[in-house]
């Protein structure tokens, strides 16, 4: 193991280290997790969650993270995930309790003012906005939790700043983005990434990141146009296909007064058509998601490249070889894996995604390990409750 590193990993030993013998060249960042182990953890999580009223899934998720962390190495040393299932569970209980109390109070308030009161629509809007705000707060808080639970060579990460303030900032930028028909989004998103990444510490060292969103605009605008055209074509094709299948007339029949819910034949027809409506809806959502993923893959790749190129950690530099093509392959592959297996391929998706990051994120330069000291910022006691409420998935 070497205490120093350069692009490609080989550095004159005299320059880099006085303490440990140099080790063979290789990428600084490495992952050697095995799919079989991930599957075992995943199946165990699935089965135990069922028999424990869902309680186990917080521990299951922790176990998967612990496995992934401990098989990801930097400069030859594995990361450790020190989070606990009980922390995730406590966070979940707190947020769940909070939401329960707030929504009950909200509903009592609405009954008290009267459900036909002019205040009610405003109230609904405020509630929806609050959800949006909390989603951003959760994003920041979850990153802090994971950083403080990540240990490498005995040092842990941390994050400065307030999640609540970040929530306001992100919320305003999101509103602005909406007001500009999302044209401000590449800029806004860049500011948010800067803010999250630029508040992130490992040990006592902060990530420094600053970049302009100008280079992201071509891929974003093209993505928007492709997405719009794709939606138009898909919508038109879908419409024609449904009309061929007499879908619309059958749906209209459902609402017409000729249908008698008590006649057995009519009931069967109603069940069939309702099933068809659900199927068409699900299919449409899947097509939209696929189109979206494909259209913006180049924008995502450009963002990854720009962020990597403009980030520094001490004397380490980063670059990304993500391209629209490989990003699209990853995303569409993951998407199809999940959809076609109804989620049973999640371990494969985890494995592919981490491998993708490790393969396409290149770290170079020399980390002055003597200068990198233990974190001083406090760590939160409970984890990710809010993010849990917005369901970030399995991992």
């Amino acid at each position, binding site marked *: *193991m070497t205490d120093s590193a350069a692009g490609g990993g080989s550095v004159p030993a005299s320059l880099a280290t006085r303490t440990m013998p140099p080790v063979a060249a290789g990428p600084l960042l490495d992952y050697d997790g095995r799919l079989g182990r991930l599957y075992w953890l995943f199946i165990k999580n699935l089965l135990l969650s069922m028999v424990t009223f869902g309680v*186990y899934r917080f521990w299951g998720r922790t176990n998967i993270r612990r496995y992934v962390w401990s098989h990801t190495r930097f400069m030859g040393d594995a990361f450790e995930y020190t989070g606990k299932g009980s922390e995730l569970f406590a966070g979940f209980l707190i947020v769940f309790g909070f939401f329960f109390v707030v929504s009950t109070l909200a509903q009592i308030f609405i009954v008290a003012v009267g459900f036909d009161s002019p205040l009610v629509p405003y109230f609904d809007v405020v509630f929806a906005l609050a959800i949006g705000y909390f989603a951003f707060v959760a994003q920041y808080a979850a990153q802090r939790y994971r950083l403080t639970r990540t240990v490498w060579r005995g040092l842990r990460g941390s994050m400065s700043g307030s999640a609540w303030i970040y929530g306001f900032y992100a919320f305003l930028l999101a509103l602005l983005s909406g007001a500009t028909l999302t044209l401000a989004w590449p800029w806004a998103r860049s500011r948010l990434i800067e803010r999250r990444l630029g508040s992130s510490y490992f040990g006592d060292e902060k990530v420094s990141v600053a970049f302009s969103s100008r280079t992201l605009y071509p891929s974003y605008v093209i993505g928007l146009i492709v997405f719009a055209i794709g939606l138009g074509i898909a919508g038109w094709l879908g419409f024609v296909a449904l009309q061929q299948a007499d879908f619309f007339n059958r749906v209209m029949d459902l609402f017409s007064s000729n249908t008698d819910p008590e006649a057995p034949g009519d009931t069967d027809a109603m069940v069939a058509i309702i099933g068809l409506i659900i199927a068409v809806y699900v299919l449409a959502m899947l097509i939209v998601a696929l189109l979206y993923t494909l259209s913006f893959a180049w924008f995502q790749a450009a963002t990854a490249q720009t962020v990597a190129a403009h980030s520094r950690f001490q004397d380490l530099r980063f670059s990304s070889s993500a391209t629209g093509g490989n990003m699209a392959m990853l995303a569409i592959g993951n998407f199809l894996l999940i959809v076609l297996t109804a989620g049973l391929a999640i371990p494969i998706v985890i494995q592919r995604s981490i491998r993708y990051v490790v393969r396409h994120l290149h770290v170079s330069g020399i980390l002055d390990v003597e200068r990198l000291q233990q974190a001083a910022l406090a760590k939160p006691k409970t984890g990710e409750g809010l993010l849990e409420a917005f369901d970030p998935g399995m991992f």
Partner: protein
Amino acid sequence: MSDPRDRFNDGLSAASRPANATLAASRLEIRDDGGRLLAHWALDEVCVIDENEANGSMVFALGDVEGPRLVLYPSPEREAILAARPELRRWRRRRGLLESRTVLIWSLAMLAIVAAGYFGWRPLAGSLATLVPPIWEQRLGEAMHESMIEQMRVCENTAGLNALRNLAERIAPPSLDEPPFTVDVVRIGMPNAIALPGNHILVFEGLIDESEGPEMLAGVLAHEIAHLDLDHPTRRIVEQLGLGALVTIAFGGSNVGDAGFALAMLAYSREAETEADARAIELLEEAGLRSDGLGRFFRKIGEDMPDSELPDWLSTHPELAPPAAAPPGTAEGDAGLAKVDWAALRGICGKKTGRE
């Protein structure tokens, strides 16, 4: 000889130092290559954090948070440490056991909460329902009533409606005066009627068709009025959905006006139906009406339809299982409607169409 790759991180900086770890009594001494002491750990406090399957190295620490780390590859020295504390080899199983214990405790706690909710909720809902302010109940009932009336065809023959309302007026106890109760007839073929919170009753056309005489209709009407008098609809809604959802409905959830939904939601327990039957007989007798209509109606429906075809709402009726157990009531008192009024009520929905 210890392995040359053995190393120590002091938990203060990211620098790794070559290290030799040796046992000295109950302590683990960690020295650098020059023999200088880097750290000494109490052996009982040492734990294993990780084990690398590929190269066999183990990471030791003083707890599973950030702090000093000792990485040891297989060697006689490491064997000596593991021999002194054999449970260190079983670190994965120990962590698994600890995890299972915590998960088990919390799962039992969840089970207790779910069980408390399941068994304790009905009595709790009953007392919560009494706390619902009348104005909320009224609003909720109005919302359900309005949207049902809007979505269904209402029968509006004046003479028939007047006859029905007079009959209901005769049966209704004073508790139904505030808010004033309403009775409407909707064009649904099912032989049924439904009582909504806020003193609203909807009689289905099918009930009038199936009734062989006014006393049968009066019996079912009294049964629905009894539900209202006993505050069953509000109690049932609180029970079914919790206070929160009571409100969601009040806001016009999309399926409020759906009769099937309302019927399913207002499907009472056997106890509640029995209570309503008993109260119905009382109400009929107090009004000086024949009280044998309700039982006869249920028996008729039970005979008309084989068990499998009974609508869900009827299946919880105690009268149907066994069918003979219906409250008999007495034939004393009048039938409730004069012949001409009964005729008007029979024709309340106008000329029959097609199927019916």
